[in-house]
């Protein structure tokens, strides 16, 4: 069964497509915005912006380090730089440039990483951003956003341009189930409760949000009252929502399309331990690279499914 199907969601745009549309649409109003690309604008979807505003779009070729520092230089001169590549190449290949040309001087650079997670499929591990959230969160002062669908991605794109300071926006390649049909009240650092419930809380972001909704549907059939939270911002994390979940439901499952270390699960754990210790279970990629294959097959093989969330929840509920 496809992601989101059990909870009645239809496939919508890929988050990268939603970002691309939103960026282009916002381009005329946000006149300070410029884009800096590294020869993958047709993959990250900065291309529509670049076509609409050619004088404000730069493509430096396959040179991510230079790309990021150029974005920093533009920002230090007052521009809002949107710099996009595959999550893996942006965060991994230009990390020091992000650290020193963006985060340390706290410049107004908007990092955008597409092709996050293993759901990109056939291209395989070299192209998969599976550590990007850990890396982005390790940059002091950088806001880290992982929206789950098209509607929230568009809202996140606007929020990112409105925010003063460096941000990271994580995007996926495949079409994403449409979680927010009637619009999304997206606020940086403010989690969205998608379902109320008292027995257990499922905290997820990105593609694992529809998986969590499916899992909740399943668990509710079995008589459990399940809270589902879209934790679209990993940093700053919504401590209040986590503490409330811990206090009110006493059990938490965290699901993300990311390595175990340094992702959403670790951020939630620290808040829980510091404020209201309760059992937490994790659904993530663990500590491994994936492989080539079709996206759905990979999610299945590496345990990033609603089934795994159900199992983790039942482990806590039993």
């Amino acid at each position: 069964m496809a992601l989101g199907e059990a909870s009645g969601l239809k496939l919508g745009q890929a988050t990268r497509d939603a970002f691309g549309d939103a960026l282009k649409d916002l381009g005329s109003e946000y006149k300070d915005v410029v884009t800096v690309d590294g020869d993958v604008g047709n993959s990250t979807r900065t291309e529509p912006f670049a076509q609409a505003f050619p004088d404000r779009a730069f493509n430096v070729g396959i040179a991510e380090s230079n790309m990021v520092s150029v974005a920093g230089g533009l920002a230090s001169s007052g521009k809002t730089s949107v710099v996009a590549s595959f999550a893996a190449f942006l965060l991994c290949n230009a990390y020091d440039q992000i650290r020193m040309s963006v985060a340390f001087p706290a410049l107004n650079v908007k990092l955008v990483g597409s092709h996050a997670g293993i759901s990109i499929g056939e291209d395989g591990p070299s192209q998969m951003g599976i550590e990007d959230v850990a890396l982005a969160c390790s940059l002091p002062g950088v806001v880290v956003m992982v929206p789950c669908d098209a509607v929230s991605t568009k809202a996140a794109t606007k929020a990112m341009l409105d925010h003063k300071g460096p941000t990271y926006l994580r995007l996926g390649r495949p079409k994403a189930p449409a979680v927010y049909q009637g619009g999304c009240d997206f606020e940086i650092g403010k989690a969205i409760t998608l379902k109320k419930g008292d027995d257990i809380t499922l905290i997820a972001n990105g593609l694992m949000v529809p998986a969590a909704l499916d899992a909740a549907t399943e668990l509710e059939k079995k008589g459990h009252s399940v809270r589902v939270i879209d934790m679209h911002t990993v940093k700053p994390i919504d401590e209040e929502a986590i503490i409330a979940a811990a206090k009110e439901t006493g059990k938490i499952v965290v699901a993300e399309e990311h390595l175990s270390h340094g992702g959403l699960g670790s951020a939630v754990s620290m808040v829980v331990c510091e404020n209201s210790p309760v059992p937490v279970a994790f659904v993530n990629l663990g500590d491994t690279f994936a492989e080539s294959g079709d996206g759905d097959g990979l999610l299945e093989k590496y345990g990033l499914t609603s089934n795994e969330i159900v199992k983790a929840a039942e482990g806590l509920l039993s």
Partner: protein
Amino acid sequence: MIRVRRRPRSVLSGRKGTPRSESLQIRSPEKSEVWPESYYGIFLTGEALVASTEISQLDFEKNEGLKLSIDELKQIATTLRKNIIKMTTAANSGHPSSSLSAVEVVTALYFGGFMNYDAKNPGWPERDRFVLSKGHAVPVLYAAMAEAGFFSEDQLSTLRKLGSPLEGHPNLKRLPGIEASTGSLGQGLSIGLGQALAARVDKTSSKVFVVIGDGEMGEGQIWEALASAAKYKVGNLTAIIDQNGYQQTGSTKEVLDMGDFQKKIEPFGWHVQTISGNSMEEVVEALKTAESITDRPKMIVSKTKKGDGILPLLEEAGDTNFHGKPLPPAMAEKALAMLS
């Protein structure tokens, strides 16, 4: 059916290589919901994957084997081209055009007597190494490896499928004979330099060959490697730039025009040649010249065409870059016919 395998000199003279510990595991192709049945047609029709050619088994014991004639090499090149198209169309993803431009270089290296390797003992420590820095072009490498006997030709149809070691980019952990895990552009020349230095430390005569994309030359790490390879005067390192004039988002002229590579690289202290890289004659000649230079690293700027062999079809499709997309089945059939 061509089956070319060179038994390396040292094996003939009694030395024994250490086999790699992981054994090769290739699963049969799995079906998937994602692709229409038709995409499997090329493999499922029962048509042999590799057009059989007339080159006979070589006499390994005399070790004159791999100095195939230019004509024989050209036949192999055609076989590789066909397999590149078949496997990427079957996978419904991948980079055929990027693979096609590098066919002559890879063919000459593997079958023209320039590389010592043992397809049945890929871990043989004194082998020569081939590093495909532009890892997305790995179909050309898989096609050559199948041809050389590293694994059977049928396995090419597992490209990019779950469970197959023929991943979308080369993975040295899973496929013996792959010398570097690439896919993030820019790293291969440095890896090759490390391998060239290891041969120096070990006092073996291993040589290293690295293929780099012209768009990839934008990565600063390549220029770091150029400088340090010159410092260490690694005479056993040969790099080839596959200058096919395109990168992902357009022509290199539009995206990042690096102009004349020879002029840029010679001042780094390398021996540089510029050739027509889809001419088997020129490729073989250039590799011979490179072989004769042993006091510094060697670069071959190989001017090629992206999608060489099926260009009229790319033109017809209105995209002579055709980056990162497989030929649709009908187009693939035409391409195979064109190559026959």
